[in-house]
């Protein structure tokens, strides 16, 4: 890379760049739509969060002070962010082999696999989540299996536990991880792996030094999608997590719908959004660092 001189780099690049005409106006309708239906409500949300009292009579930072002044609120935020990390890590762990298997299979097997991967996306999240209630219940499939195999003496409590919730979220969000991984892994040149084998690398070394670094962009994209979906999964969190496990989405719902405390709900929404954005930026930084690593 360093051998390329500066004029060589800029010369062709400027020549190849398409002239900017009036094509950008094509993006205007969508931009207007976003301005009206996304940016405006977001600004309203910020404005509501700046009211000092639930009756919305005076302005102040009271809601934010209240949020950060109570360790309980911080614990709810922390457990929500941590839930996302657990789900993302497990989804990656199970999703990567699946994506790998897909790229190594023949065309017939590939179409069968893609059907299996896409299928959950074709049913509603509510239906998928409800299936987990049936699976995890006291009389559910898992408990019946454990009892009949003699692995447990009494039915275990699986529903309304964090373990059950993580398992359900991993399954529900799996396509979001596997699809970006498949895209990156399919573009990977198989010759590279052959070359590393020819140069004496074993399968593990080849995977760690060649496949894994080259698939990092897909991993980052998959993790981003899975993380954002897992921390905000209101339906799955409440149906499989139950009523006593409080995560940020239910906390916001409770303050808005049951207690009509809109300023506090708005404030915790903003805090939550900024925190998730922070984690997402962290992922992005990792992605950028990984690019440097691959090219080095």
């Amino acid at each position, binding site marked *: 890379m360093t051998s390329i001189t500066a004029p060589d780099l800029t010369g062709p690049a400027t020549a190849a760049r398409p002239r900017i005409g009036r094509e950008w106006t094509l993006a205007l309708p969508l931009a207007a739509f976003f301005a009206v239906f996304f940016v405006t409500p977001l600004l309203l949300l910020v404005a509501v969060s700046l009211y000092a009292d639930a009756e919305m009579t005076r302005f102040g930072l009271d809601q934010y002070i209240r949020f950060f002044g109570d360790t309980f609120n911080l614990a709810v935020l922390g457990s929500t962010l941590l839930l996302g990390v657990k789900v993302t890590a497990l989804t990656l762990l199970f999703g990567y082999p699946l994506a790998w298997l897909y790229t190594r299979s023949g065309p017939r097997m590939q179409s069968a696999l893609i059907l299996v991967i896409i299928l959950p996306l074709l049913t509603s999240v509510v239906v998928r989540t409800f299936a987990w209630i049936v699976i995890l*219940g*006291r*009389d559910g499939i898992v408990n019946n299996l454990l009892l009949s195999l003699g692995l447990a003496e009494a039915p275990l409590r699986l*529903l309304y536990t964090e373990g059950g919730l993580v398992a359900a979220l991993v399954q529900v969000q799996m396509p979001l991880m596997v699809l970006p991984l498949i895209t990156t892994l399919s573009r990977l040149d198989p010759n590279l792996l052959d070359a590393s084998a020819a140069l004496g690398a074993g399968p593990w070394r080849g995977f760690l030094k060649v496949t894994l670094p080259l698939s990092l962009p897909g991993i980052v994209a998959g993790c981003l999608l899975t993380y954002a979906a897992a921390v905000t999964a209101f339906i799955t969190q409440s149906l499989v997590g*139950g009523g006593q496990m*409080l995560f940020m989405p239910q906390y916001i719902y409770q303050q808005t719908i*049951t207690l*009509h405390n809109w300023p506090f709900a708005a404030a915790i929404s903003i805090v939550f959004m900024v925190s998730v954005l922070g984690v997402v930026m962290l992922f992005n930084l990792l992605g950028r660092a990984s690019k440097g690593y691959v090219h080095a």
Partner: protein
Amino acid sequence: MTLDRRQILAAGLTLGAMSLFPGMSWAQARKLVFATFTGSWEEAHRDVIVPHFRKATGNADIALDPMLSVDMIAKVSAAKANPPIDVMLMDPGPRLSVIGQDLAAPFPVADSKNYQDLLPVAQLPEGPGIFFQAVGITYNPEKVKTPPTSWDDLWKPEYKGRVGITNMNSTLGTAFMVELAKTRGGGENDIEPAFAALKELQPNLGAVAPNPGALATLFQQGQIDISPGNFNAIQILRARGVPVEFAKPKTGTIAFLTTAHITKNSPNAKLAAALIESAMAPEVQTKLMQAPFYVIPTNAKVQMDGDIARMIAKDQEELKASFVFHDWSVINQNRAGWIERFNKEIKV
């Protein structure tokens, strides 16, 4: 003014529609919009109240718009001058918000045929009570052999891990806590005994459901065998063949009155009153009380029978004696603090 093709077509369609739907010539500005509750409530109201209303008003146009009371309040308060809803249904907590925010017009009591036949507790001029909801103990008779008779039965050691409750977000969860406090020396102003009792209940708790609907499905999944429950939610499960029964606690069945309100500034105020009149009528409430609806009547002229007579009350005297009402004006003031406390203290 020149008439183009479109205007002529529109005028023609309007005339055609008016002859097809004579209700429109009742000088209706728009359809009467009745905001009912979702699920089986909507079904019941569509099948029984709506036909009675249409007969009484010469086929006036009506649309049902099912939603929660809190959503009705949000919609109406966002457009007070021109509300999108004409008749609202309110649970006791939201009812106080409607009155406090001045969102309802008083019901024309003097012109009403059925109002004075309502039980005294349902005779509310801001909006009469058109049915009761009842909360008692629900249980799976295949697992719980002796029918429970008291809230204290939930604490029996044999139900370890088999008891379900909901959190305090729902009316059901909040009312259960208030009743718990009442049976242990507290009340709407002193919830402390309820939290203490809940701590003792922890070994028995199999689930804290996020809402009453989720709680009901846990019986179906065998996750829980006994819980506080809404009589009507249980009837839906029974109809699907789920083994579940309703028992009256000896300290009384917790009751909520559901009230119907004419929205203030409704362009259909007269029709709205006619709809509420239909909802109070003894023939409507009798039909609603029977299978498959099982709606508990507020009209004293209705003869109780069937499941309602067996599980709730055999007549109005027994109903009056066994129903316990809570003071929601006090509950509303304290609820935010209670929910915060529940969030922090109840971990299963």
